[in-house]
């Protein structure tokens, strides 16, 4: 099933002479040992802080992580707030004005967004806005700027590793502007794919709430529709939305992979995809671990959000 020890060793070999050393490599790194033994060895190394070596990055995994992580973070930092704002706003509107043109429009938009593979949509955007209009190029930053940054460490300190933010921190808005130009298409792609789900859940949540008794009570009190929709219904409708929040995070991660691969942004997703094609096992294992951690954290945050919105739930 898994690749034979020979093939796994062959991944690290770059010339025919080195191929002769394969049996020694297998011996040295214990590639013939049974899987549980290899796994426990990996765990021991991870505990020591040694995550292995990444072929793709030509650096130890732990070090490579810090150069890839900021890029992905930057993308999601811009995309996530947009997703939340647009999703909740449009979803509420669609639920309140059920069966109107707006409702049908957002539903169709959501379905089409859901049917569009992220990578395809990214390719199309690239084709139109880069190929035809030549407006928004792929990549993270223009070559000349990245060269300038490397050659002038005194004039530009990379605090966070994210060009857009570093530009502001350094007072160099030209860099920020350039980084933002490269971010527009990836962010649009990421947003459209994730917002489809959020809109759908928000809409169904609103529909459910608007048929509840306390909405009728509010109406009998003489409440206007604004109060009913926002104050009464929406707050309750957010509860099922939070339930899906975990899914949204997963969707964002998967979206990041496609977006980074197509737009050539060297972030975690790009790293993952290239490691997969080049059979870079240490990276994949470390990635799974990292993502597992992210999930545990986001579930914790989600639980806290639940307690904040729904007074029936008490935090222990």
């Amino acid at each position, binding site marked *: 099933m898994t*690749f034979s020890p020979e093939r796994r060793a062959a991944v690290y070999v770059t010339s025919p002479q080195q191929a002769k050393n394969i049996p020694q490599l297998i011996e040295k790194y214990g590639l013939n040992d049974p899987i549980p033994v290899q796994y426990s060895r990996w765990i021991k190394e991870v505990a020591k802080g040694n995550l292995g070596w990444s072929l793709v990055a030509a650096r130890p995994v732990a070090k490579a992580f810090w150069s890839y992580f900021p890029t992905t973070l930057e993308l999601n930092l811009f995309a996530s707030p947009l997703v939340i704002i647009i999703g909740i706003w449009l979803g509420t509107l669609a639920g309140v004005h059920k069966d109107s043109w707006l409702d049908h429009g957002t539903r169709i938009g959501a*379905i089409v967004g859901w*049917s569009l593979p992220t990578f395809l949509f990214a390719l199309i955007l690239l084709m139109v806005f880069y*190929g035809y209009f030549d407006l928004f190029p792929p990549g993270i930053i223009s070559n000349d700027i990245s060269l300038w940054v490397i050659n002038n460490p005194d004039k530009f300190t990379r605090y966070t590793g994210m060009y857009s933010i570093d530009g502001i921190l350094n007072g160099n808005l030209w860099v920020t502007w350039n980084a933002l130009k490269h971010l527009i298409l990836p962010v649009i792609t990421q947003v459209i794919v994730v917002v489809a789900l959020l809109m759908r859940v928000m809409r169904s949540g609103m529909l459910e709430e608007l048929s509840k008794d306390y909405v009728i009570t509010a109406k009998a009190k003489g409440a206007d529709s604004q109060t009913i929709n926002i104050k009464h219904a929406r707050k309750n409708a957010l509860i099922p939305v939070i339930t899906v929040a975990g899914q949204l995070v*997963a969707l964002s991660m998967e979206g990041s992979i496609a977006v980074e691969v197509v737009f050539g942004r060297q972030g975690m997703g790009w790293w993952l995809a290239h*490691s997969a*094609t080049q059979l870079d096992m240490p990276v994949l294992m470390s990635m*799974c671990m990292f*993502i597992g951690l992210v999930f545990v954290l986001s579930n914790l945050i989600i639980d806290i959000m639940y307690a904040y919105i729904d007074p029936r739930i008490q935090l222990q």
Partner: protein
Amino acid sequence: MEATIQTKNEHPRLRELKFTLHRIFRNPSAILGFALLIFFLGVAVAAPHLAPPKYEHAPYQMPHKGYSPTPKAPSAEHMFGTSSGQYDIFYGIVWGTRTAFKIGLFVVGFAGIIGISLGVIAGYFGGWFDELLMRFVDIVWSIPLLVLAMTIVVAFGRGLENIMLALALVEWRWYVRVIRSEVIKTRRQEFVEAAKLMGVSDLKIIFRHILPNSIYPVLIMASMDMGSMVISASFMSFVGLGAPKGYADWGQMVALARNYIVGPPSDPFKFWYTIAFPGLAIILFVLAWNLIGDALRDAFDPKLRRR
């Protein structure tokens, strides 16, 4: 002197079925979805006639005349043009339909059957099996579908079959969760308790009472999954983990088009056909399943059911 009004003399199940079908089809998106689906089915079934295979024993191998990397525009000979490496796009689209159905049916079938069986047992009987299964699912849950599937493919090796297997091995967790929660909900209802008290066997209860009531969300999910699994599989093929070059798979065809999405500066859309046709095929196929799933969701939603 009849105190009640006679309802039509038909079996209540038939009436419910007709009502459900009415609810599904009064939605124009459902009609569109089904129409698209039938179209794709037709293409898949008629593949050998629409695009006669060049190699009898390997119909999924796209024919190519020569190895030139530059794609050629649509012409009389190649209806949709050729992609990088001179692969006939029309052929790829037609046979790719079969591939898409294969992927969808395999993954959904595999994940569905395993997920449903495990979920029903866990939900109905509870106990240590339920606990064990849920812990396991919780662990697997923390990693997104694509990441886990890619990891599995790296471990097993490349190829379309491995992609399908990997996707199935990850997607079953959804089915388990959904059907388990539905089963637990149904199990608590009074008619199930009544059946138990009457001494009906567990197996009968499961098949007659539990399954028919809990299956709806799973059906909706299965329908949407047919589409989303094709998306995931095509992305993995695009990245290079899937079918080999020249195989009739839509994702693979987009990979072929990768270097040609932007043509020369004078005519940036020159090679539009390399990506337009496979892209359109993927979008429409997934759209069909999503529309159907959406219509099913609206039809089965108990709150929206009786207006």
